[in-house]
């Protein structure tokens, strides 16, 4: 079985999510925007022009009021009515065009970022994939990606519009009368204070609220998946009670967030009152001193009143924008992970033999799990790794597959060191089937074609036949077209492993490494899988981490690992007769299985 990596193992511990700094994030976004700069600029110009047209309305209304005050008669109002209509038309046309353009730019940016991030994650070198997928870090990045998409395509246009509107409104009041504009600015100090307070208190509270909600969901997930076990052990009462506590706790946090939010909006209200009161008071003085018309004061008050909603959007969503920035930093962090340097001239292996020279490995410095291992597997030969739990079998397999780099010594394929082979070349040469199994959502054919994109249906059938899976696949309602994976038909452990082996046949690598490929299939399935494994390994150089000794018995050579060292090597017959560790393992195994 797998020597379980110790939980504090830095190579697999859920550790460092690659996060970009603020500057890196801004630079990456700017770079993406530059590709679309003409459309982005045009969108901005149209939006500003459209929103400027919107500024006409209160001003024109002020004019109309002045005309009424001056008793100019109804006909004098009509041209201004026409101006109002025209302004509405211009505003509608321009903001619609600008909005559509901005959305196109935003969607393209989001899609590019999404494709780069996921694409980068999917093409990570094995070492990195291992350490990042262990803690579910990459799944979290995918959730971040959704946040970023929403931010770029919904939040950003809203904020941009609100910001432009705010600037234009203050500008319009300024054009009316600079003293009224000064009065309107009275709203700023309380709002700045409110925003600073919000960022200081709300962000941590929001994080804790999210944690409480995540905690609740995790517990629920555990409970739903383990409902049968909970019933079997009489744990249902306790599970239900803890579920209630967590649900209640997350509710308490949601209420706390709503308190903070409403307090914030309350403070914004104070700013609005101050600004509006100042405009009216200043207007009173100006009109009394004949320095401004009633129409101008009315227009200023109307402008400012229209800004209330804009303030709420601009400041209220600021928080969202902050969270979106954090998510963006994580996404950009993955998208810009450095590509490992491919060796300039990749050496071509002379053949497909494996040679391990003095390899040692330690997950934690000073605690080696593998010492000075030498191993040669000539092309086409099958070697089985045998040993008790924790002997280092999986680690050795991982070194050969290139998942970990040995801390000392080296691994060669056909005489070429693994790192000189280059990631792409290595992937074509070595295929690893590990304990990790996954059936991809979609049709079965889609899943298999991940390993061989250009395979014809009959190639798939042939490969399935090799692993003995074709009979049950053919019996499926839609055969190869049956939907499997999440949301589709559930496969048994044996079937899942057969599919994994079928992928190996389709990928058709010269070197195959099987680690625990038949572990979880139960007893009956194990025999089916042993046969399948034997069929798919024919003609390849193979290293099999033998879980049951029958897997070892047919190998060309058996390597017995004990405490990270090679304890014994030889054929089954020789080792069984030698009276060493293998003989002891074999007798424990065969005592219950007389031949």
């Amino acid at each position, binding site marked *: 079985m*797998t020597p379980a990596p110790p939980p504090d193992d830095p190579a697999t511990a859920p550790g460092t999510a690659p996060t970009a700094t603020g500057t890196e994030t801004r630079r990456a976004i700017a770079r993406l925007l530059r590709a679309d700069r003409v459309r982005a600029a045009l969108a901005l110009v149209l939006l500003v022009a459209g929103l400027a047209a919107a500024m006409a*309305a209160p001003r024109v*209304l002020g004019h109309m*009021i002045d005309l*009424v005050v001056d008793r100019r008669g109804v006909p004098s109002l009509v041209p201004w009515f026409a101006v109002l*209509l025209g302004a509405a038309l211009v*505003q509608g046309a321009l903001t619609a065009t*600008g*909005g559509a353009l901005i*959305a196109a730019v935003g*969607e393209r940016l989001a899609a590019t970022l999404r494709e780069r991030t*996921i*694409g980068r*994650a*999917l*093409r990570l070198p094995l070492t990195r*994939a291992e350490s990042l997928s262990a803690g579910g870090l990459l799944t979290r990045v995918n959730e971040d990606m*959704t946040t970023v998409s929403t931010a770029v*395509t919904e939040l950003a246009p809203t904020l941009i519009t609100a910001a432009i509107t705010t600037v234009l409104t203050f500008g319009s009041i300024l054009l009316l009368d600079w003293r009224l504009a000064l009065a309107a600015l009275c709203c700023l100090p309380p709002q700045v204070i409110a925003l600073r307070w919000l960022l200081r208190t709300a962000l941590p509270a929001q994080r804790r609220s999210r944690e409480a909600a995540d905690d609740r969901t995790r517990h629920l997930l*555990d409970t*739903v998946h383990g*409902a*049968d076990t*909970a*019933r*079997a*052990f*009489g744990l249902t009462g306790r599970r239900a009670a803890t*579920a209630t506590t967590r649900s209640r*706790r997350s509710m*308490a946090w949601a*209420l706390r967030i*709503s308190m903070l939010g*409403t307090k914030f909006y309350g403070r914004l*209200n*104070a700013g609005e009152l101050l600004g509006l*009161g100042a405009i009216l008071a200043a207007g*009173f003085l100006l009109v009394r001193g004949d320095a401004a018309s009633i129409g101008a004061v009315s227009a200023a008050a*109307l402008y400012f*009143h229209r800004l209330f909603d804009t303030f709420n959007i601009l400041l209220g969503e600021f928080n969202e924008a902050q969270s979106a920035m954090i998510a963006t930093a994580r996404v950009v962090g993955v998208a810009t992970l450095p590509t490992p340097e491919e060796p300039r001239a990749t050496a071509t292996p002379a053949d497909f033999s494996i040679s391990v020279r003095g390899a040692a490995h330690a997950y934690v410095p000073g605690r080696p799990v593998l010492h000075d291992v030498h191993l040669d597997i000539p092309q086409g030969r099958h070697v089985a790794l045998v040993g*008790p*739990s924790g002997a280092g079998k999986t680690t050795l397999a991982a070194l050969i597959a290139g998942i970990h780099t040995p801390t000392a010594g080296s691994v060669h394929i056909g005489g070429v060191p693994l790192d000189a082979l280059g990631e792409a070349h290595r992937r074509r040469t070595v*295929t690893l089937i*590990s*304990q990790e199994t996954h*059936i*991809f*959502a979609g049709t079965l054919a889609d899943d298999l*074609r*991940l*390993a061989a994109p250009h395979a014809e249906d009959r190639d798939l059938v042939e490969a399935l036949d090799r692993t003995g899976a074709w009979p049950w696949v053919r019996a499926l309602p839609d055969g190869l077209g049956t939907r499997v994976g999440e949301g589709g038909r559930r496969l048994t452990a044996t079937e899942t492993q057969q599919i994994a082996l079928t992928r190996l046949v389709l990928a058709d690598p010269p070197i195959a490494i099987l680690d625990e490929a038949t572990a979880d299939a*139960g*007893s009956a*399935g194990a025999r089916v899988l042993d046969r399948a494994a034997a069929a798919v390994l024919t003609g390849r150089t193979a290293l099999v981490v033998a879980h049951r000794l*029958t897997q070892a018995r047919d190998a060309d050579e058996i390597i017995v690992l004990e405490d990270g060292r090679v304890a014994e090597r030889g054929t089954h017959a020789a080792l069984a007769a030698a009276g060493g560790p293998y003989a002891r*393992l074999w007798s*424990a*195994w065969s005592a219950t*299985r007389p*031949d």
Partner: protein
Amino acid sequence: MRTVRRWTATFRTLIRPAAPADDAPVTPLTDPGGGRAVVRYSLRTGRRDLIASGTFTAVHQAAETAVPIAIGVIIDHAVARHDPAALLIGLAGLAAVFGVLTFSMRIGLRMGVRGIEGTAHALRVLLTRRVLHPRGIAGEDTTPGNLLSVAATDAPGVGFYNSAVRRIIGAIGALVVATVALMTVSPPLGLFILLGLPPWLWLMRRLAGPVIRHTGAQRATAADASHQAADYLRGLRVLAGIGAGTTAARRFHHTSDHARHAAVRAATARAVYDGVNTVLTGVFLAVVALFAGILADHGTISVGQVVMAVGLAASLIAPFATITAAIRVVAAAKVSAERVATVLGAPYATAGGGTPAAPPEGPVGLDIPPGIAVRPGELLGVAAGDPADATRIIDLLARRTDPPPGTLLLGGADVTGMDPVSVRAAVVVSFHHTDLFTGSVADNVLAAAPPDRLAPALAAAAADDIRADAPVSEHGLSLSSGQRQRVALARALAADPPVLVLHDPTSAVDAATEARVAAGIRTARAGRTTILITTSPGLLAVTDRVTVIHDGHPTADGTHAALLSTDPAYRDLVLR
């Protein structure tokens, strides 16, 4: 004095709403006949929050509407007439309006959030209880994925029904104030505005068709992309192992592109809709302005009232839009309620009945259909050639499915007539698929056992190399599959039930460890009835007796050694 204190207390609960106490009972939903019952339940459990939040939201909206009225009054009475006293009174009035506005906004929103959260909480608790019900859950929509999505999305979704009701009440508050104000200013103008808005809204709703359609397509394609990415990322190690990363990335690129085009189409539809909306709003307000201007010119209304009328017309759009939006929210909430009702009202997997009884004291025997007899205190191996047979027996013993009445007997008594909780206290099934719960190894092993059983159970399961305080993460992923399996076995042994059923408990451990586990089970279960469902010879070797199942029926019976030497089919079955 007491009245004052009571009012202060009420005020405090309004301004600082709290979550219910841990031991606060959750009202059961007796008959979830369908979505309607769930909606009624939600409105009933949240009615106090709903009344409070609806009232205060209405006051808040009314105060919002009063702001343009106040502006108009101040312009008329203070600014136009140069009256400083009127200005001071007007500003004080404005401050009062803002005071009411901000206070009622706080309470309205907070109580509203509590209404949503309270309903979501109550439904989550009920859903959890339903999922954990002793009689199990059957029906098509009860896959773990669906149950989770109902609890995570639909439980709060039902709460939005309350929120929609609150908003509608609030919008009505605004409409009432605006109507009164407009009618006071000028009945013809008021009527024009109030009668003009509904057709305008109707038109906008008609125009919203393409937006709704495109947005639906956008959501669906975006979800596709996100699901595909999540799926690939979960299988990342598999992809990396077979070198399929580039192929997967190319496929994702395709899906993502599809999502982008759908999103651009939706955004364009929205932009056009917003543009039309802007133009129509502008035209409407222009007509109101002209109308008000003409009235003012005739001296029917004052200039301040012109400002008031235009301000009110503009601020009336929001409550009308709120009502139409709330109708959509209600429709979505009804769908959620329907889904919650389906789970809460899902059929039970097995029969209930019987009265709770203490587990039997001494060794107890079992009869399992068809024809498997388990003697009291024996360690019986059940070797099934077809895994489906093993699963069927497990499902019967775990009371996941009902056997024909009178066929599954525990100590001679029909299990189908017994209380399921009591049956499980007597017969514990440890499934092959190990479900460990988040916590520590010790938490899991001692889930149903006193603390002193920790060390012996870990030793018997050959799990004494695993630290008892080692954390167990979601799905036990912090442990290797072999460790998970041994911890699960230790949990079963620690529970020490009168009858223990183990299904392939060593499929993920090596041969040497399996031998230790087999010996451990033998010792730990001495004198207690144990059923080992497996074809592993290492385990079968320690049993007292083995029953062989072929095509659903027992075909052979005897000791492992005897069967090995006499039954070639058995040899073929267990030797790998």
